[in-house]
C-alpha cells in the first residue's frame, strides 16, 4: 500500500512552510542584532549569523535523516531513546559549569544541551506509555507511572540547575490531561477515605491541570500588573490601576466567550457554559484580588523579596534589570518599528539587553518591526500551534496523537514564557523562542522534534495501532 505513494504524499506542507519561515526570520533577526561591521558577510561562520546558518543546515540534514527513517522505529525504540537522553542528562552533571549551570555537553560553541533532547525522549516514551494502556480506567498506578516518566528528567534538569527547561516539562501535564490521565484517582482516594463519602469522579480532580495553569498564569500577571498603572496617551485623564486592568480583561473575555457560545452551541449547552463562565469570572476575580491585595499588604521586606525573585525590582548590585530593558526595547518599537537593522536598545553591540540574540531575541524583532511585526509573529506562532493541534486530532493512533500534543504544548510553553518575559508578563527564566533564537541545541532539537512529527503524520494512514 505504501509502495504506491511517495514519501511526501501526506506531508503537511503548511506546517513545514511556517516552520521554515520562522527559521529564516530568526536568522534575519540574528543577522540584524548581532551584526558586526568587520564581518558583513551573512555566511561568515565566525559570526553568530554565520553559525546560525550552519546550524540551520545541520538541522535540515538531521530532519531529512529523521524523515527517511520509518516511523515505527520511534515507536519501537522509544525506551532506549529515553534512557539515552537520561544518560546524557547524568553525564552533563559532571561537566564544568557554564554561567552557573552544568547544562552543556561538548566544547565551546559546538556544545549541545541534553535537556533540549530529553524533551523528545520524554515525549516519545510518554506517547508509548499512554498508547499502551487503557486510560478509560485510569488508576493511581497509571497516574504515578506517567508522572514518573516526566519527573526523572525534571529532577536531573533541576540539578543542573535549569529552571526554564524544568518549567517547560510541566507542559506534558497538559498532554496527559488531554488523554484523560489526571490527578482524579489520587484525589478520589483521599476524598473517599472519609467515611460515608463515595465519589465516582471529581470535577476539580479531572481539570486540576488547566485550573492550576489558570491560577498560576493569572497570579503572575496580577503580580506584575499590581505595580503598574495603565495610562492612555490620547486620554491623559484616565489612569487605571493594573489590578483593575486584569479584572476588566477577565470580564472582557467572559463576554467574548458568551457571544462566541451563541454561535456554536445549543441553548442548553449555552446555559451550562454561561454558568461556568460567570463562576469562572467571579473565582478569577477573587483570586486576582487575593494576589493583588495580599501582595500590597505584605511587609515591605517580603514584598522586595518577591519583587527581586520575579525580576520586578532592580537588583541592588546590578546595573539595571533585564526585564525593564527588554520592555523598553519592545515598547519603543511603536506601530511600524524602527526599521530593519535599526534597533538601538537591543542590538548586541549596545548590549543594553543582555542575551538579545538568544532568550531576548523578541526584543530586536519587536523594536525593528513594531506592532505590525509582533502581531504577525504571534499570528504565525498561533498558526503553528493550532496546526499541530489539528494534526494531533487527525491521527488514528494514540501514540501519534500524544506525541503531536507533546510537541504542541512544549512549543506553546516556550512561546508563552519567552514572549511573556519580553513584555513583562513572566519572570525572566532563560528559555529560547523556538526556531527564532540563536543557538544550535535548541534549533536542532526543535527541528528533530518537528520532523519526527511530520514523519509520524505522513505515515498516519498505515498505522492502525
Amino acid at each position, binding site marked *: 500500500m505504501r509502495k504506491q505513494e511517495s514519501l511526501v504524499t501526506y506531508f503537511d506542507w503548511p506546517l513545514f512552510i511556517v516552520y521554515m519561515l520562522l527559521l529564516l526570520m530568526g536568522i534575519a533577526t540574528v543577522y540584524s542584532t548581532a551584526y558586526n561591521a568587520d564581518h558583513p558577510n551573512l555566511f561568515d561562520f565566525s559570526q553568530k549569523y554565520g553559525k546560525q546558518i550552519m546550524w540551520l543546515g545541520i538541522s535540515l540534514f538531521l530532519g531529512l535523516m529523521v524523515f527517511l527513517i520509518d516511523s515505527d522505529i520511534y515507536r519501537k525504540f522509544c525506551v532506549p531513546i529515553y534512557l539515552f537522553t537520561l544518560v546524557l542528562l547524568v553525564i552533563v552533571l559532571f561537566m564544568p559549569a557554564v554561567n552557573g549551570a552544568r547544562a552543556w555537553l561538548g566544547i565551546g560553541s559546538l556544545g549541545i544541551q541534553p535537556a533540549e533532547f530529553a524533551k523528545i525522549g520524554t515525549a516519545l516514551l510518554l506517547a508509548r506509555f499512554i498508547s499502551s494502556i487503557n486510560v478509560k480506567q485510569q488508576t493511581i498506578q497509571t497516574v504515578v507511572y506517567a508522572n514518573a516518566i516526566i519527573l526523572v528528567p525534571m529532577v536531573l534538569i533541576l540539578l543542573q540547575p535549569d529552571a526554564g527547561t524544568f518549567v517547560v516539562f510541566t507542559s506534558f501535564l497538559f498532554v496527559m490531561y488531554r488523554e484523560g490521565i489526571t490527578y482524579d484517582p489520587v484525589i478520589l482516594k483521599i476524598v473517599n477515605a472519609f467515611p460515608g463519602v463515595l465519589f465516582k469522579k471529581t470535577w476539580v480532580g479531572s481539570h486540576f491541570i488547566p485550573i492550576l495553569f489558570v491560577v498560576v498564569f493569572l497570579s503572575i500577571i496580577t503580580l506584575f500588573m499590581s505595580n503598574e498603572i495603565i495610562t*492612555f496617551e490620547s486620554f491623559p485623564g484616565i489612569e487605571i490601576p493594573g489590578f483593575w486592568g486584569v479584572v476588566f*480583561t477577565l470580564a472582557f473575555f467572559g463576554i467574548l466567550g458568551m457571544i462566541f457560545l451563541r454561535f456554536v452551541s445549543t441553548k442548553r449547552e449555552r446555559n451550562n457554559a454561561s454558568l461556568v463562565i460567570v463562576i469562572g469570572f467571579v473565582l478569577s476575580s477573587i483570586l486576582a484580588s487575593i494576589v493583588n491585595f495580599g501582595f500590597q499588604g505584605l511587609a515591605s521586606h517580603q514584598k522586595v523579596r518577591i519583587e527581586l525573585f520575579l525580576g520586578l525590582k532592580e537588583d541592588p548590585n546590578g*546595573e539595571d534589570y533585564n526585564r525593564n530593558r527588554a520592555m523598553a526595547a519592545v*515598547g519603543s518599537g511603536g506601530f511600524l518599528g524602527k526599521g530593519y537593522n535599526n534597533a*538601538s536598545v537591543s542590538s548586541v553591540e549596545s548590549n543594553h539587553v543582555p542575551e538579545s540574540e538568544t532568550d531576548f531575541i523578541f526584543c530586536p524583532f519587536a523594536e525593528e518591526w513594531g506592532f505590525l511585526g509582533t502581531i504577525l509573529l504571534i499570528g504565525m506562532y498561533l498558526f503553528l500551534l*493550532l496546526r499541530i493541534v489539528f494534526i494531533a486530532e487527525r491521527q488514528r493512533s494514540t501514540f501519534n496523537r500524544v506525541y503531536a500534543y507533546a510537541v*504542541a504544548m512544549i512549543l506553546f510553553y516556550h512561546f508563552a514564557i519567552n514572549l511573556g518575559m519580553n*513584555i513583562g508578563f513572566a519572570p525572566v527564566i532563560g528559555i529560547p523562542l523556538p526556531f527564532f533564537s540563536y543557538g544550535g541545541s535548541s534549533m536542532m532539537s526543535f527541528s528533530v522534534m518537528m520532523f519526527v512529527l511530520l514523519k509520524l503524520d505522513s505515515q498516519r494512514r498505515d498505522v492502525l495501532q
Partner: protein
Amino acid sequence: MNTDNRKYVLIAFIIIVGIIYSVRLFYMQVVDETWTLRAQEIAEKRKEITPPRGVLFDRKGKKMVSNRTYYNLMFVEAKMKHFDTLAFANLIGWSKEHVRYRFYEIKKGEGKYRNKNTGKTTSNYQKIRPYAFLKELTLDEIAIIAPHLENFPGFYEEVTSMRSYPYSNGANIVGYLSEVNGEEIDEDNFYKPGNNIGRAGLERFYETELRGRKGIRYIVTSALNNAIESYANGKYDTIAKQGPYLKLGIDINLQAYGERLLKNKRGCIVAIEPSTGEILALVSAPSYDPNLFIGRRNISNNYSRLLSDPSKPLYPRPLAAEYPPGSTFKLLNSLIGLQEGVITPESGFPCNKSLVGCHNHASAGNLPDAIKHSCNPYYYAVTKRIIQQNKKKSVFEDAELGLNTWARYMRSFGLGSKLETDITGLSGGSIPDALYYDKWYGNHRWAFSTIRSISIGQGEVMLTPLQMANVAATIANRGWYIIPHFVKSIGGKGPKAIYKKKHYTLIDRSHFSVIIEGMRRVVHEPGGTGKRAKLKDIIVCGKTGTVQNPHGEDHSTFVAFAPMYKPKIAIAVFIENAKGGGGLWAAPTAGLMIEKYLTKKIMEKERETTILNANFSYR
C-alpha cells in the same frame, strides 16, 4: 471516558494567550509612551561639548589671556583588566597607597549626586562611567604616561582646555577660573560637574559671554556607555561655539611696567584714556602671577597661601580699597568754589597755620598758586565759603544746605557710589552729606567747623583709586567723563552704549582751565609739589596728596593727566605708607607711567631706578 472535548480547553488556552499578548503589545508599543521614553533614556545620550573660552586681547591686539590644551587621565573601571597597582603607581610617581586612596576618593566623592529637592548627596559612582583619575596634566606630564597606557586597559587620555597667561600681569583684572560648585550647577543648567566658571575680575563679569555656547551631540550608546552612532544622523546636534574674544583697553606693556614700578610697595596705579574712558592700566600691588591659578592643582596649592598673605595680593585695591584722597581733593573743592561763585581765580587767602597745619610756602595770591603749593589754610577758607554761604539764619541749617550742595557736585564726578565699571569687586567710596553727619552728631548739631577736614580730603571722604583716576580724566576732559571700563569690544562689537555716554559734571567747562593751569604749575613751576613728575617735552598737569594715616606712615598720592591739551592719559597713583609726601613717590611714579605710555621709552633713568629700588613693604 471521552476526553475529546478537552482539546477545546487547550485550543482556548493557546488562543487566549495569543490575544492577551497581542493586546499587551498593542498597549506597550502603540498606546503607551513610557517605554519609548525609557528606551531613549537607556540608549540615547546627550553629550555636551564644552568649547574653549573666549580669549582676551589688549588694546594693541596682544593676547593677554588665551587657552592651552591640557589632558585628563580618565578611566572606566568596567574596562580595567589585570590592574597592576604598583606598576601604575610607579608610572605616575605616586605611592601604592595614594593610588588606592584616589580610587576610593573618586568612588566616594566624585560620583556624588546631589538631589536638588532633598539636598541629600549619594554616591552614584558607576563602573561603566568614565572618571578622571588625574586632572589637568600638561603636555609634558601626559607625554611620560601616555606611551605606557596600553598596559593599563581602561585608562585613556582626554583633552581639555584651560587658560594660559602669556604675560604674568593683570591678575586682579582678569581674575581666574575654578570648578563650579553644587549651587551654581543648580542655578544655571549650563554648568555640569567639572565645568569651570569665572571666579573674579573680567572672567566673572563676562562669564556668560566668555563661556560660549555648548555643543550638544545626541548619540546612541552601548551599555558600557560607548558611543555607537550619532542619533538620527546628527539631525538634532548643535555645534559648540567658542566664546567671543574680548578686546580690552588695557595696554599690557604699560600694565607690566606699572606692576614693575610698584614692586615691594603696597598701592595702586590706575590709568585711563580720558576721551574714551578706557582703562589703560590698573595696577594693584602686591599682586600675583595669574599662572598660579590655572587648574585645580595650582589653585589648591596657592589659593590659601595667597589668601592668608597679610599683604593681601588677592585684594583688587584699585577697585575695592577706599582711601581718603588727601590734597588731590582740593581740585574738586576749587571747582565747586568757582561754580558756586564763592571764589574767583584771583581769590587769595593767607596761609594761616592757626586754622590748619601747612608746610612752608608763600601765601597764595590766586587759585593756581594755591593748587601749586597745596595750601591747607587756603582750602579751609574756600570750603568754608562753600558750606557756610549764609543763606539761612541758623549756622547749622546753613551748613546743612551748603554740605548737600557740595555733595551734589561731588556725586556728579561719580564719587560716593560705585561706578558702573565692567568688573566685579568694586567699592563706592563715601561722600558725606547732611544725613550722614546727622547720624553722627544729631540733627542740626554740626557746622563747618565740625566737618572741616573734608576741605583737604581727609576725614569722612573716601575714594577708590579708580575714582581718583576718573576725577583726573574728568578734569582732563574739562567737565565730563565716560564710565571707566575695560572691554572695548566683544567679538568685534562695541563698546556698549553705557560706555559711550558722556556724563557731565555740574561744573561749567569754563572753570576748568584755571584749575588745569594750577595743575601745570604743580609739576612745571619751581616750588610746585609735583615737580618730580615733570617730563621734557610733555606738559603734565597733576596734583599731589599726602594722606595722613593714623596707622603709620603717610600715604603718597598723585593724580595727573597729560598732555595738557588733547590729553591722552589720566592717572592716579596711590602708594601706601610711603615715607614722604605725594610729591616724593607718587608723582615720579605717575611721571614714569605717562612717559612710558606717551613716548614708549624712559629718558630719566635715575627717576626710574629710585622708584624701582624703593621698598615700602615692611611690616
